[in-house]
């Protein structure tokens, strides 16, 4: 199975990269852009054939290593 995880800064945590990219998009003329947030995507193969169990495992990986719960949220997809 393939796991795909999106990690992003929590709402309320200033995303300075997002701010810089947003300013640049405005400079290029896309004035309608707002709330740019930059996160990271992590993908890997995970053994087994039970998606629910795999999702639980991946959630644990996020808590232990892949995300920092002080500043980051995450979203897990397993397929």
């Amino acid at each position, binding site marked *: 199975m393939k796991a795909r995880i999106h990690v992003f*800064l929590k709402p309320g*945590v200033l995303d*300075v990269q997002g701010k810089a990219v947003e300013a640049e998009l405005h400079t290029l003329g896309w004035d309608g852009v707002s709330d740019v947030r930059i996160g990271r995507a992590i993908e890997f193969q995970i053994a087994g054939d039970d998606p629910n169990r795999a999702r639980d495992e991946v959630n644990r990986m996020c808590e232990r*290593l892949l995300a920092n719960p*002080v*500043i980051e949220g995450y979203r897990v997809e397993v397929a």
Partner: protein
Amino acid sequence: MKAAVLVFPGSNCDRDCKVALERSVGAQVSMVWHKETELPSGLDLIVLPGGFAYGDYLRCGAIAALSPVMSAVREAAAKGIAVAGICNGFQVLCEAGLLPGALLRNVGLKYVCKFVDLDVVNGQTRFTAAFGETRTARMTMGNGEGNFFADESTLDRLEGEGRVVFRYRENPNGSARSIAGIVNGAGNVLGVMPHPDRAFEAALGSSDGALVFQSVMASA
């Protein structure tokens, strides 16, 4: 005084810390590779140095925080041995959960490397007692992700418990409440973004950093 300096792959201030400890307080310093599972006996201080442990991969300090040696550091900290994380070492201690908060990308997105003037907010800690009546310190900082973040209630608690140790006089990177250094609840674990190890004698532009090490020695 006996001290250990941890060495992670990508640490680059480990030797600076060793020299700073030897010259400022005559410490006997062991360099401890991160794969070790035990620390030398009789330590008075464990230093997590600056640098880019594991290339800052994933998040600064995230992988180093899970290194084998960190279990021994956790045990030593629980026993009350002084632990100081400087710059990347501060990031590692936050990731390891030994200090609250996290260090975010600097506001302005720049790596900031310069002298900074600090207020010594709490001069009663194991890391600041030697400052005496002096309430300011000058050290250099060098970081791209030194922007201290914690939620408001954590910040209130840190302030209320006297755990904010150093504060920038002019905030260089967006750190919450201009915080440059904090201690844990027991007062034996310090995290500081500016470098006492780069300011331990006048020839370096400031000797104020030596007072941090002298404070630890006096409490040992």
